[in-house]
Every structure is written in structure tokens, then in C-alpha cells.
């Protein structure tokens, strides 16, 4: 591009701010969104967690917190891949003995850790790791004695969950509430006999003993906060997927905006061409403008993205999906990447739009009323066909995916590819819509005045204009429906399976097993622990149960749950299919804390969504979870939930199982993408309507009243909304059917009618608002002036 075109591009931008406002807003939002998502990704990659409890120990030895597996890379080399464990792996006492005998080691401080209500419980033995010191009172000795931290607000002599406070420490940790028991009592409560969670070594250690890992410096924080480690992995995958999705949506939106602004400037650009600018120069000018707008919008957008990223992080922390002490990483990388990708998207979008322009002969474009060219160019046909084929392939692939981790990004991609196909073939869709809706509008015109007639004629005369506003509207409806209803479909299927499978039993979190069994009216009690296991490196949600057919019906498809006990495992149909095993086969798996187990498949069941893909015997998993309390399933047909709650011992409350924060996190993040598409809708419609100022003025001069003009615009908008709702719903339906077929086994998605009505209503309201406001504004200018100014 020559300096002449650049200088010209700057001039044009200065002169025609309005025409670029739409592209500017779209690019600004895109930059912010991409930057925020990349910030999450970077926080996942590089976010550090400072040690708190282990801060006073120079070296910490603990078990390996990863599952490791050698993977053949195919070219003869092997690579060890590691995945974080979902439960803490504990260290055998024998390793501690080895440490104590190691030359140069002066002292070894052991620790156990377990949840105690909202506190984290430890034995007083580990106070030296931080170090904690007693401010008032004394260390705990008896089983019912505890020491609380300085923040607890409890005085010596107070009571805490059946324990007596005998001491208060001088310290408190920033992100955890600590309670110390006597060493012996803590070991029993932790539920890992003969094991410790970590050992601090003074004054330091050169290398880890056999079967253990050495943590020093910041690494100690990663060991201390294993949930932060899992959250980081989640942030990496979610940040990546979100950034990709937002970039795709951004490209789509920006292409649409640029196409519209170039269509509106057709005459001006054709004029340039007519005064002997070469097509390459015109393209260069348009590309130069795009680069400028991209930079102008990208810089503040990416800066705003930092704020958005911090807000997202704070929201995830509030939802409990990310630990508060995982600090967000702020660095120039996401900003630069967002800036580069927006500028690139703008440039590509402008070049695509300009292609269309330079195919038109200048004379033609200069014609007073350029007639919409009726033929769809060949490349649109080809691109449309390729995209339709891509959408079909992705839908088929999606219908075969049965893990949420794999299905979620593919679901978004499938909906996007279908939407792009609709956008590319937009003029065809618009023409079809005009064919169907036109007569309806004209019919409305016969009854209610000329507005319907005018709207029908406008649609017929310029299906291309309709096509331009269809893309963002369809995108918004398709994305919103897909995001919302994939969650409801999963939730409904899981809830249905769990409800059907628990046989009307009551769930009592944290209740005592023996006491519940002795309650009058109780027929059967099942203990349930929620955890996860890995087959190889692949993670599966699991439950560990004391199986009783009176409380639990897994929907057995093959094999039998009779005699389910030590050495048995049951798998969901999805898991069994993926592993290629059936009843009677031996499987090897890794429990949540890394302990390997070899089990025999007893049964294959259908209710994997409700209960998890893997069902283990309770005894097997009991010693290998961080929170050994779990839930009771109580079958008591003669008792109501209230009666049971009143009678249930311990902390039990009849409540739903704790809801995972994951769907909410997905809603928040994907909600941003929905908001972005909504901005694109407003943007495009406002641009399209403002571009019609002259046309509306001409109508006014011909004797059309304001009301008639506004009614005409409203009817046209409703036609666009109707078409996009149909197209968007169809896209969402196809995508959700494929998603459902893979995830729940049923191709019928669960769509709450009220939610759907809300989506449609919101789309219509947004579209009407985005056209009515600019239409009213342009009607405010005196018609005679508006006409002569053009």
C-alpha cells in the first residue's frame, strides 16, 4: 500500500466518522473480549499461588500430585504426559522415616489436612510449617480440644462443632481458616491411616526421596492449593476455547459491519474508481481504513479487556470456580494478541467486502438507484456449500461425543459454522423470506394502511439489505439458544436420571450413617461419595456407594449389580463404550488421589449423567478423598423430607447435592459472547437504518406520515426478526440434537418454553429498539433538508 492511499484513508476516516462507528464498536468489543479470554488463559498458564501454610518450611516433601503416563508420539519417541489428580495424594509414613534418616536433615514436621466445616483442620504437629504460635491459651491435647486462628473471633473456652477452644494462635492465613486438633485426633479425622499429607524439612533438602516430590519456593503454593492447580487447568482450556469462539464471532460480526459500511459508501468508492484509481488502489484504501479503524478500536478495546478479564476472574472467584488466591496475571501478551487479532480481523473483513465492490463497474455503481444485483456470485455458492458440508460433518462428529469437555467447544463451533453458512447464503435466505413474508406484509397493508405495502416492496427490492441484518440476528439467536439450551438439556437429563435412579430416596449430606439407619421408618441407607477417577489420563466423574437396590437404580443394561462390593466397578454405557469393556472384564484405573486399582466390571448402566460414569464400592474410595463426609441416600417411604430432616442426626439437612459451579461459569463467559452478538445486532441495525435517512425523507416528502414511516420500518424489522429467529432456532435445534444424541442419548433437547419465549422476545425488542431510535432521529431532520443534503 502506498503512502498516498494511507494518507487518503486517514482523511476519509476523519471525514466520515459515522460510517466507521459501527465497525469501530464491533472491533472494540472484539478486542476486549479476546483480551479478557486470553487473560484467563494466561492466568491458567502462569498464575502463581503463594504458599501460606507452608511458608515457614524451606522444603516440603509430598506425594506426586499427578497421574503420569508415557505416550508414544508415533515417531519412536515417547513423552510423559501428566494430569493433575482430583484428590490429594498422601505420603506413606515410611517416606517420612527415610527423610528423618537423611544426613543434613535437622527436623521433619509432618502434616495432615482435612475439611472441618468451613475450616481446614490439621494436627498441632504441623504448626511449625507456617509457623503458627499460640497467642492465648495452650496447644490441644485431648480429643475434644482445638486451637483456632486469630481471625476466628473465638475466645479460649468457646465451643466449635462439639469441640472446646483451648488456644488461639497469633496468626491467621489470608485465604483459609485454620483449626488445629491434637495430633492423634487429627490423624483419625483425616481418614488416611499411616499417611501424612506433607512433610516440611528443615533446614532444607537437596533431592526428593524415592516415591515423593520435593517442593520449594513458589511450588509449595501449588501443593498447598491443589484446587488452584485444577482451576488453572480449567482456565487454560476454557480461556482458549472462549478466546477462539469470541475471535470467530468477532470476525463474523466485523465482516458484516464492514460489508454494510462499504455498501453504503458504494457511490463514493465507485467515484474514486471512476476518477482513475485502480481497483488495487481502491482495495488498498479500504484495507488501509480497516487497519486504522482496527488500531484505533483495538488499543482502547484491549485495554478495556484487562478490566473485563479482572472482572471475569473476580466473578469466577465469587462463583467458587477459581480460588481467590490464584492471582490473575496481567501482562502485555493478551493485549498484544488481542490487538493483532482485531487488526487482522478488520483487515480481512475489509478485503472480503471490497472484493465485492471492485467487481462492480464504476458506471453501474454510480447509477442513481443502483439495483441490487440478483445473482449470487459463484464464490458464495462454493463457500456456502463447503460451510454446509462442514456444519453437517461437525454435527455428525458432535453426535458421537459423550464427554462434556469434548462436546462443549465442538457445540459452539458447530453452531458457528452453521451460522456462517447462513450468513454466506444470506441473500438466498432473504429472498426466500421475502417470498413468504412479503405477501403477509402486503396483506397487512390492505387492512392497516400503506406501511405494510411499503415494507413488502422494500424487502422485495433489496433482499441484500435484509440479508445484511439477518446475519447478526441469526448469530445472536443461534448462539443464545445453543448456549442456554445445551445447559438445560444436560441439567434436565442429569436431574431426570438422578431422580429416576434414586427411587424417591432422600439425600442427606453429611449425616451419620449408623444413626440414620437406626431411625424408625428408614428402610435402607446408602453412603455416597463424589469423586473422580482416571482411566489412563482420561478423567471420569465417579461415585462410591454402599450399593443398595432400594435406594439406587442405575438403570443396569448389562451384567448385574448383585454382589457389588470389593473388587467390583460399574460403568456407564458411555464410559464402557469408550473403554471398550463389558461385564466380566478387568479394568485398571487410578483413584482420585493417584492410588491405582484393578477391578472387575460388574455391570454397565444407563444413568451415567445422573450418577457419574463410574460407580465404585464405598470402601475402595473412602480413604482416597479429601472430604470423607459425603452424602446419605435414605429410603424411608413413610417419612416426609421434613420429618427426616428433623430426625436426622448430625449436620444433616435435606438439600440437593451441592451444585457444581461449572455451568454458571460457562453462563458468565458465554454470556459475554451473547452480549457481544447483541451489540453486533444493535450496531448493524442502527447502521442500516441510519443509512436510509434519505430514503425515509423521500417517503416523507411523498406524503408519508411519521407514523406510517415508523410502522413501515417496524414491519421490516419484524420480518428480519422472524426470519432470523426461524434460521437461528433451526441452527440451534440441529446443533442441540447432535449434542443431545452424544451426551444424553436423546436427540430431543430440553427447551423451557418460557426461556425460549424470552430469547425471542429479547431479540425482537433489541432489533425494534435498534431500528426505531435511528429512524426517529433521521425523521427529526427536516425532510426537505435531508433530501437536498444527500
Amino acid at each position, binding site marked *: 500500500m502506498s503512502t498516498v492511499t494511507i494518507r487518503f484513508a486517514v482523511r476519509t476516516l476523519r471525514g466520515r466518522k459515522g460510517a466507521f462507528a459501527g465497525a469501530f464498536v464491533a472491533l472494540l468489543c472484539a478486542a476486549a473480549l479476546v483480551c479478557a479470554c486470553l487473560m484467563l488463559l494466561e492466568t491458567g498458564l502462569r498464575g502463581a499461588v503463594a504458599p501460606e501454610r507452608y511458608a515457614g518450611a524451606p522444603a516440603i516433601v509430598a506425594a506426586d500430585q499427578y497421574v503420569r503416563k508415557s505416550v508414544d508420539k508415533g515417531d519412536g519417541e515417547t513423552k510423559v504426559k501428566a494430569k493433575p489428580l482430583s484428590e490429594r495424594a498422601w505420603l506413606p509414613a515410611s517416606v517420612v522415616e527415610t527423610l528423618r534418616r537423611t544426613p543434613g536433615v535437622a527436623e521433619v514436621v509432618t502434616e495432615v489436612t482435612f475439611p472441618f466445616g468451613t475450616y481446614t483442620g490439621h494436627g498441632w504437629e504441623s504448626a511449625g510449617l507456617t509457623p503458627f504460635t499460640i497467642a492465648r491459651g495452650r496447644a490441644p491435647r485431648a480429643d475434644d480440644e482445638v486451637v483456632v486462628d486469630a481471625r476466628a473471633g473465638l475466645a479460649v473456652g468457646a465451643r466449635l462443632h462439639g469441640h472446646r477452644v483451648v488456644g488461639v494462635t497469633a496468626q491467621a492465613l489470608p485465604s483459609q481458616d485454620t483449626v488445629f486438633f491434637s495430633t492423634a485426633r487429627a490423624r483419625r479425622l483425616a481418614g488416611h491411616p499411616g499417611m501424612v499429607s506433607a512433610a516440611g524439612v528443615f533446614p532444607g533438602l537437596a533431592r526428593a526421596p524415592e516415591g515423593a516430590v520435593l517442593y520449594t519456593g513458589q511450588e509449595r503454593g501449588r501443593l498447598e492449593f491443589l484446587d488452584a492447580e485444577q482451576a488453572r487447568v480449567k482456565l487454560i482450556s476454557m480461556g482458549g476455547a472462549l478466546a477462539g469462539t469470541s475471535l470467530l464471532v468477532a470476525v463474523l460480526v466485523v465482516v458484516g459491519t464492514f460489508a454494510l459500511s462499504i455498501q453504503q459508501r458504494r457511490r463514493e468508492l465507485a467515484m474514486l474508481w471512476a476518477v482513475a484509481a485502480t481497483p488495487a488502489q481502491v482495495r488498498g484504501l479500504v484495507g488501509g481504513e480497516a487497519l486504522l479503524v482496527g488500531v484505533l478500536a483495538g488499543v482502547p478495546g484491549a485495554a478495556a479487556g484487562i478490566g473485563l478479564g479482572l472482572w471475569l476472574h473476580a466473578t469466577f472467584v465469587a462463583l467458587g470456580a477459581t480460588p481467590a488466591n490464584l492471582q490473575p496475571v496481567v501482562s502485555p501478551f493478551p493485549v498484544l494478541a488481542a490487538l493483532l487479532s482485531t487488526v487482522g480481523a478488520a483487515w480481512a473483513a475489509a478485503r472480503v467486502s471490497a472484493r465485492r465492490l471492485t467487481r462492480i463497474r464504476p458506471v453501474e455503481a454510480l*447509477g*442513481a*438507484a*443502483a*439495483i441490487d444485483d440478483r445473482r449470487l456470485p459463484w464464490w458464495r455458492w462454493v463457500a456456502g456449500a463447503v460451510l454446509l458440508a462442514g456444519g453437517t460433518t461437525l454435527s455428525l462428529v458432535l453426535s458421537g461425543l459423550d464427554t462434556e469437555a469434548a462436546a462443549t467447544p465442538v457445540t459452539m463451533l458447530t453452531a458457528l459454522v452453521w451460522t456462517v453458512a447462513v450468513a454466506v447464503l444470506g441473500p438466498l435466505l432473504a429472498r426466500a423470506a421475502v417470498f413468504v413474508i412479503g405477501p403477509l406484509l402486503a396483506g397487512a397493508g390492505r387492512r392497516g*394502511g*400503506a406501511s405494510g*405495502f*411499503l415494507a413488502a*416492496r*422494500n424487502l*422485495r*427490492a*433489496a433482499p441484500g439489505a435484509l440479508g445484511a441484518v439477518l446475519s447478526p440476528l441469526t448469530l445472536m439467536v443461534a448462539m443464545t439458544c445453543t448456549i442456554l439450551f445445551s445447559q438445560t438439556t444436560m441439567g434436565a437429563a442429569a436431574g431426570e436420571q438422578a431422580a429416576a435412579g434414586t427411587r424417591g430416596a432422600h439425600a442427606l449430606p453429611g449425616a451419620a450413617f449408623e444413626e440414620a439407619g437406626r431411625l424408625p421408618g428408614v428402610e435402607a441407607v446408602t453412603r455416597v461419595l463424589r469423586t473422580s477417577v482416571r482411566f489412563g489420563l482420561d478423567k471420569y466423574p465417579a461415585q462410591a456407594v454402599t450399593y443398595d437396590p432400594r435406594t439406587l437404580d442405575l438403570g443396569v443394561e448389562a451384567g448385574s449389580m448383585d454382589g457389588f462390593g470389593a473388587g467390583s466397578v460399574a460403568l456407564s454405557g458411555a464410559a464402557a463404550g469408550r473403554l471398550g469393556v463389558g461385564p466380566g472384564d478387568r479394568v485398571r484405573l487410578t483413584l482420585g488421589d493417584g492410588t491405582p486399582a484393578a477391578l472387575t466390571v460388574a455391570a454397565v448402566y444407563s444413568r451415567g449423567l445422573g450418577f457419574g460414569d463410574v460407580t465404585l464400592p464405598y470402601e475402595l474410595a473412602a480413604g482416597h478423598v479429601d472430604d470423607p463426609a459425603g452424602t446419605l441416600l435414605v429410603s424411608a417411604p413413610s417419612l416426609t423430607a421434613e420429618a427426616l430432616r428433623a430426625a436426622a442426626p448430625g449436620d444433616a439437612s435435606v438439600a440437593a447435592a451441592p451444585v457444581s459451579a461449572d455451568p454458571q461459569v460457562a453462563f458468565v463467559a458465554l454470556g459475554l459472547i451473547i452480549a457481544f452478538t447483541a451489540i453486533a445486532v444493535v450496531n448493524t441495525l442502527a447502521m442500516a437504518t441510519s443509512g436510509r435517512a434519505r*430514503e425515509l425523507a*423521500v*417517503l*416523507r*416528502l*411523498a*406524503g*408519508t*406520515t*411519521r*407514523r*406510517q414511516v415508523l410502522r413501515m420500518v417496524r414491519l421490516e424489522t419484524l420480518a428480519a426478526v422472524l426470519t432470523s429467529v426461524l434460521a437461528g432456532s433451526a441452527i440451534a435445534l440441529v446443533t442441540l440434537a447432535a449434542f443431545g444424541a452424544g451426551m444424553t442419548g436423546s436427540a430431543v433437547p430440553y427447551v423451557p418454553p418460557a426461556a425460549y419465549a424470552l430469547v425471542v422476545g429479547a431479540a425482537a425488542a433489541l432489533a425494534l429498539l435498534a431500528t426505531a431510535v435511528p429512524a426517529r432521529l433521521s425523521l427529526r431532520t*427536516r*425532510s*426537505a433538508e435531508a*433530501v*437536498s443534503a*444527500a
Partner: protein
Amino acid sequence: MTEAVRLDAVSKVYGKGQGAVAALREVSVGIPRGSFTAVMGPSGSGKSTFLHCAAGLDAPSSGSVRLGGTELAGMGETELTELRRRRVGFVFQAFNLISALDVVENVTLPLRLAGAGVRRDRLEEILRRVGLEGRAGHRPGQLSGGQQQRVAIARALITEPEVVFGDEPTGALDTMTARDVLRLLREVVDGLGQTVVMVTHDPLAASYADTVLFLADGRIVDSMTAPSPERVAGRMTGLGAWK
């Protein structure tokens, strides 16, 4: 009632305070029914404002405008639109046809907007008179400039209005086509008894009128009956020098 339009002491001031510009100053004039009037004047003399005020497109700052005996002052925007639709026809320099509508739809648009029926014979009569037979189904983009202006004239005539206003109706046309359009306007006055008021800067166009009004600095400074292009041009030069 022999006057189609009557302006009494009409002034129009744009802006306020020190920046205020008076476009019309106390203009009083009556346009007789069945006459062809041309309004001329140098740029900035208030021609367009005169037309807009007379046609109810713009409200005067003071004074009274009566269209066929109806006082326009105090009318709301919707009332004015409906009045214009029934009693005023417009022909613009830029044609201002609706590109989405074909010839017949454009011509009958005012009737349709008013919710009135279209009399087939009346429509055919007008199309024949303006010379658009056989073009009924064409869209504006498929017509030449002259043809488009004929559609605009037909649209102005369809409601049998009190007055047809022309704002430089031949400004965008070549000499030959312009002459055809002017002849058509002349014929509308002579044959149909229509009243036509036309703003123009072209002495040749003005020579087709019965009367020429000369505006300068917001005032009517002169009028001329039975104009010829030479006399009009001479008077205009005088105005320019006088200004």
C-alpha cells in the same frame, strides 16, 4: 376564492441571537389559481425557503400561509403531512421517487398513503398525459432522468392538488429533456387548469411561466408577466449587480 396560495407578511429566521439569519422578510404574495409562476433569485435569496413555507414543509417564524383557504399556522406535523398529501404536489430536482416501487406504485403512493382508492381511468389518463404509457411496470432505476421526472409529475398530479410545487424540476436534466418537462408543466396548467409554482435559476425555464417573481435578500423585489428568457436574464443580471 381565486388564489391557490396566499402568503401574508411571512418571515423565516434560522438560528437565534447574533447568529440568526433571516431567509424571508415580510413576504406577501398571492398565487392565482390556474397560473404558472416561476420564482427566481440569486443563491441565498430565499427561493427554497419561500417554496418550503408556501408548501407547508417548513413553518414560518411569523406571518400567515393559506393553502386554498386553509390556514397552515398551528397545524401539527401529521396534520401538515396529510394536508400536503391531499392538496399539494411536489416535483423535485432529484426526482425523489421510491426506488423499491414501480411506476404505477410510485404514482399512486399518495392515494395509498391516504387510504384512498385508485381510479383506473384517472391513472391511465395521467400516465398518458405525461407520456409514460407502456412503462407502468418499470422501476425508477430502469428509467432515464426525463422519464423519472415525468413519473414525479404524474405522482404530483394524481391527487388533483391545489398546487404543484417544483423545486428546480429541470435542474438535473439536459436541455432537450428539460424543455419536454417544461412543456408538460405548461400543458398541465393550460389543459388541466392546475396551479404550478416553480423555483428555478434558469431564465429559459422561467420563460415558460405566466409570471416570474424575483427574490433578493429574502424579499420579493420585482415581478414580470409574459417573460422571455432575455428579459429574465437581464433582470437577474441587474439583481446580481444591485446585490
